[in-house]
């Protein structure tokens, strides 16, 4: 589903964010990107979204090299990827339902399709009774569930999550992880950057560890830290 080939990203000013990363993520997999702040997790996610351009290397999403994608096609790439961020990124002027529906409006779906589809995903995240509220009227965990709902409402084959539990307390985080796990079980590929040890250890999924922009470890059903480190 996603394949990175010798990907290097150097920011303006010469700081190397990501160095020679090669990685293959098959369809339906759940992958944790772990490592301290500044290790390159977020940069990798931004590169996969084409929010940044690679300095060297190629990134294939669904068989297509997105590094050579003309910029007018970038919106189409993003429609096949759901994104969840630490800061939720909800539109404050729209209600919860409007926020979720927005992802479908952008695709030009007719209203008759948008309504039921939004309702379905609101049921999935357990917020169907709060659709008419505004984001500021919800708790952090609820806002993040809205964000997950928006990311998943058009059933993208890929979900990219950048520290989705970063602003949440442990109990709330578990709820979000359960949600992402359910979404993953529908066949959606999930890539999640995190430095939350407990979550990674509990989920027992593939772990890719980064440090200073390089890949240290790629382990199936791994823990946050290697046995040697603990």
């Amino acid at each position, binding site marked *: 589903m996603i394949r990175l080939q010798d990907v290097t990203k*150097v920011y*303006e000013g*010469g700081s*190397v964010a990501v160095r020679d990363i090669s990685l293959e993520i098959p369809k339906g997999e759940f992958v944790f990107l772990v490592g301290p702040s500044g290790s390159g997790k977020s940069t990798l996610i*931004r590169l996969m*979204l*084409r*929010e*940044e*351009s690679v*300095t060297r290397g190629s990134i294939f999403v669904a068989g297509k090299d997105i590094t050579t994608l003309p*910029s*007018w096609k*970038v*919106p*189409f*790439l*993003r*429609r096949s990827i759901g*994104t969840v961020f630490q800061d939720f*990124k*909800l*539109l404050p*002027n729209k209600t919860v339902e409007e926020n979720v529906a*927005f*992802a479908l*409006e*952008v*695709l*030009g779906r*007719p*209203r008759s399709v948008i309504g039921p589809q939004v309702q379905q995903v609101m049921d999935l995240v357990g917020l169907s009774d709060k659709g008419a509220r505004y984001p500021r009227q919800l708790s952090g965990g609820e806002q993040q569930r809205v964000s997950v709902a*928006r990311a998943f409402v058009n059933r993208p084959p890929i979900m990219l999550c950048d520290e989705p539990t970063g602003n949440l307390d442990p109990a709330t985080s578990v709820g979000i992880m359960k949600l992402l796990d359910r979404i993953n079980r529908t066949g959606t590929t999930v890539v999640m950057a995190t430095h939350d040890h407990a979550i990674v250890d509990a989920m027992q999924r593939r772990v890719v560890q980064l440090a200073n922009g390089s890949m240290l470890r790629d382990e199936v059903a791994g823990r946050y830290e290697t046995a040697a480190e603990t």
Partner: protein
Amino acid sequence: MSRAAFLLREALVNLRRNLLVVVGAILAVFISLGLAFGALAVNELVRINTLAWQEGVHIIVFLNDAGRDGVPADAHQALMAEVQTWDEVANAYYIDKTAAYEEYQQIFASDPDMLEILENPTVLPASIRIELSDIDQYQAVEFRLQQHVQLINKISSAAQEIEQISAVSGVLNLLGIGLAIVLGASAVILIANTIRLAIYARRDEVSIMKLVGASNWFIRIPFLLEGLIEGIVGAALAVFAVWVAAQNLAGAGVGIQLINLQIPGTFFLRWGVVFLLFGAAAGVLGSLLGLSRYLREADGARPAGSRRALEPV
């Protein structure tokens, strides 16, 4: 269809939610276009008034009475016939003593003293009124008239004054048009600036739109509609305000005879449409200018130069 409706609804909701910025943009358009339109209207007034002067009678030739003091009985008709053959003369007509007296009575209808002074209607001389095809030719015509010394009592000409007025109105015209252009250009810049501010205030929203895969046009259209609406509303207010001002001015100027303060409705119709279109175009252009930089940045693509510079690392 539902998509177009969605975009229009987005634009309207944005207009309502950012009322202060929107009012600012509309005022910017209103003030600059209002001043520009006002300058144009004043210009039109000057033009109308000089036109009236230029088209009137330019030379009046007062004639000695025929059949007396050696003036032949048919001398008036002979001169009249001759004047009409001259190329410089667009139109000439003969006012006999009776007509002159009637005219006098008309002019001083409200002034009994003046009417009393003139007891004998035959005192007033007959005259020939001449309209020139080109006002610059007045000296040649005057010269030729002066050849008929014994027939002519007096030649009265407003040509020189009219020439001076024409010169002044030419300068006023130029000033008015220059002012309109400068104010129109400042309208575009003000709109662009205001919309850029509006977009800056909503940059998070724009980045979220991009994140969920909105195309640049999808993001742009509500902003363009906003700019369009702001431009049209501002321009309509400007045209309306100047029209109201002109109506008041014309109302105040009813008693004044020398100057015409009435601007014809066709002027407002023609230029009103032009200003509305200009306001709409300025709104759209302003939005495009305000958006272009932000959308490019939000794309994550770096300008070609800086990216090449990083390649060797």
